[in-house]
C-alpha cells in the first residue's frame, strides 16, 4: 500500500532536478498535496498564492508564457471547481502549458465530508478542448503520469485520491498517455476501471472467476485522449462492459467509454460509481461501501450486464 500522490510528489522532485523550467504553484495545501517536497528542494521555483485557486491557475498560466512548466496543486474540488473557468477560458483556450494535480479526489477523503469529496473532476475536465485527463491507479502510475505530463505541451489534469492504494503496476511497466492497459485478459465481460477502482476490479475479477465468469480488466488511466481502439477491441471480444470509477456516474469515465462504444461497437454496459448523490463524513471504507464503489458492486453489475448480453 502506498500513497498515490507520493508518486506525483516524487516525480515533481525528479522533474525539478532534470528540468529547470518546472515550477510548482500552491494554494496553501502543499503539505496535503506533498508539493512541500518540491518546495524544500527548489524554493525559488515554488510559489504559494494562498487560498486563492483562481489566481493560482491564471498566474501559472502567465508564468508558462515565459517557457516555464508550472504544476498547480490543490484539492480536486477547488482545482476543478473553483478555478474551472480559469482552466477553461485561460489555460485550455490559450493552450497554455499548465499542469493540474487535483489531490484528495473522490470519496476517500473520508471524514472531511461532502464539501471536500470531489466527484465531478473527470466530467468537468474531460469536456474541455485541449485538456488531457489522467487518473493514476497507484504510486508508480502517478509517478509515471506526472513525468509524462511534463512532456506534453498543453494542459494536463491529474487526479489523485487521498488513501494509500495497493501497488498494482510494476515499476518497469510501460506507461503511455492515452494507451489503456489491459491488466488481465478475459472473455466474458470487460471491466474498465480507473484510480482506486482498478484494485477493486482485480478483486471483483477473482470473485467472478469463482462463479465461472472470465473478466478482462482494463486500467483506463487516461480518460482523455481515450483509447478507442483498446475499448472497441475488448468490447468486441467480450460483448459486455462494466465501468468502475470513484466519481459521479454522470459524465465520468464510464460516460466517456459509452460515448466510444455506443458509436462504434454497442454492447450491454453497466456503470459503477457514485449515483447522483453527494458524500458524507465517514471512513473511506464505509463511504466506498455505502456509495457503491467496492468490488462487490462491480461483481453485481457484471452479472447483471451478462444477463443482457446476447
Amino acid at each position, binding site marked *: 500500500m502506498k500513497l498515490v500522490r507520493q508518486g506525483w510528489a516524487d516525480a515533481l522532485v525528479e522533474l525539478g532536478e532534470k528540468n529547470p523550467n518546472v515550477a510548482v504553484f500552491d494554494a496553501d495545501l502543499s503539505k496535503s498535496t506533498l508539493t512541500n517536497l518540491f518546495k524544500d528542494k527548489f524554493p525559488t521555483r515554488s510559489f504559494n498564492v494562498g487560498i486563492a485557486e483562481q489566481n493560482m491557475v491564471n498566474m501559472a498560466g502567465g508564468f508558462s508564457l515565459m*517557457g516555464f512548466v508550472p504544476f498547480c496543486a490543490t484539492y480536486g474540488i477547488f482545482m476543478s471547481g473553483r478555478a474551472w473557468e480559469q482552466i477553461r477560458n485561460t489555460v485550455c483556450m490559450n493552450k497554455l502549458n499548465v499542469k493540474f494535480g487535483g489531490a484528495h479526489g473522490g470519496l476517500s477523503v473520508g471524514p472531511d465530508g461532502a464539501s471536500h469529496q470531489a466527484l465531478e473532476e473527470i466530467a468537468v475536465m474531460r469536456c474541455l478542448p485541449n485538456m488531457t485527463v489522467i487518473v493514476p491507479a497507484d504510486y508508480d502510475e502517478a509517478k509515471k503520469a506526472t513525468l509524462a505530463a511534463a512532456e506534453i505541451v498543453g494542459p494536463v489534469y491529474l487526479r489523485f485520491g487521498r488513501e494509500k492504494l495497493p501497488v498494482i503496476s510494476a515499476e518497469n511497466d510501460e506507461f503511455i498517455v492515452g494507451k489503456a492497459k489491459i491488466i488481465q485478459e478475459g472473455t466474458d465481460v470487460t471491466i474498465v476501471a480507473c484510480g482506486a477502482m482498478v484494485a477493486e476490479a482485480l478483486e471483483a475479477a477473482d470473485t467472478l472467476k469463482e462463479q465461472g465468469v472470465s473478466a478482462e480488466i482494463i486500467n483506463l488511466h487516461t480518460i482523455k485522449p481515450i483509447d478507442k481502439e483498446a475499448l472497441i477491441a475488448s468490447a468486441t471480444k467480450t460483448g459486455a462492459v462494466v465501468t468502475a470509477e470513484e466519481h459521479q456516474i454522470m459524465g465520468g469515465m464510464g460516460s466517456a467509454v459509452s460515448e466510444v462504444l455506443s458509436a462504434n461497437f454497442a454492447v450491454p454496459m453497466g456503470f459503477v460509481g457514485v449515483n447522483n448523490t453527494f458524500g458524507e463524513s465517514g471512513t473511506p471504507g464505509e463511504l466506498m461501501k455505502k456509495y457503491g464503489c467496492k468490488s462487490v458492486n462491480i461483481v453485481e453489475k457484471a452479472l447483471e450486464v451478462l444477463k443482457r448480453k446476447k
Partner: protein
Amino acid sequence: MKYPIPFDERELKLKTIQMRKDILLATHSAGSGHPGGSLSATEILTVLYNCILRHEPSEPENEDRDRFILSKAHITPGYYSILARTGYIDPAEIPNFRKFGSFLQGHPKKDLKHGIEIGGGSLGQNFSVACGLALGLKQRNKTAMVYDLSSEGELQEGSMWEAIMAAPHFKLNNLCMIVDYNNLQIDGCASDIMGVAPLDKKFEAFNWNVIVVKNGHNLKEVYDAFKKVEELSKTTEKPTVIIATTIKGYGVSYMANVCGWHGKAPNKEEYDKGIQELDDQINQLNNQQ
C-alpha cells in the same frame, strides 16, 4: 518601426482620432461590439503603445519586449486599432471584425504574430495572467514591464483582488495596472450597481503604488503617469496602479457618458455622424497649425 517614440501631443491627438474612427468602423461593420469602453481607453492605449511600451511589431516574439495584457478584453475595437496602427495588423482587416473566419474575434484570441499576448474576454482572469507573466519575467531576470488594462467594472470580480493581493506579495514592481475608470457598466453607473470607490485607498491598503490621473483623455497627464510608473518600478518593490478617470464613449458626442453604448454598434446614420465629427476634429487640428 521601433517603439517608444517621443511624446508629441499633436501627433498623438491625431492618432487618437484615427483610433476612434477605427472603433466606429469596426463596430459598425460588425453590427455589434463594444465602442464605449474602447473610446474611454483610447488615450491610454495610444500613449502606451506609442510612447511607453518598448516593442517592435516586426519582432513580436522578442523576449525583451514590454508586454501589454488586455484584461477588459471586450474593448477589441480599440485594441485591434492600436495593433493595426502600430504595425501588428493590416488596418484593412478592421471591417472584418467579429466576422466568420476573421482572426479579429469578438474577444481576442492569442496570436503573438499580431501582437496579442493572450486571449481574453472573461473579466477577472487576465490580470492574474499579467501577474504570472511579471513573475516569470523576473524569474528569467528580464527587465521588461507588464502593463494590464482593467476597469472599475472588472474590479467587481473577486478574483481580481486575489491577484491584487498577490502582486505586491511577489514584489512585482515590473507590473502596472491601468484602471479605465469610466464609471459605466452594462446595467448602469458602477457606483449605483456595485461601487468600487475609494479605489486609491483600496490599492494603497493592498500595498500598491497609486497614481491618480484626473483626466484620462489628457494625453500629457496620461504620459506623465506612465513615466512615473517607470520611475517607481525602479525605486520601489511594489506594483503600480494608474487610476484614470475617463468618460465612456469619449470623443463621439452621442456616445459620451451614455451607458447604452457599452455593447452596441452605431447604425449607418450614427456611423456617418461620428465619422463627420471626428473628421471635423482633424480639420480643426490642421487649421490650428
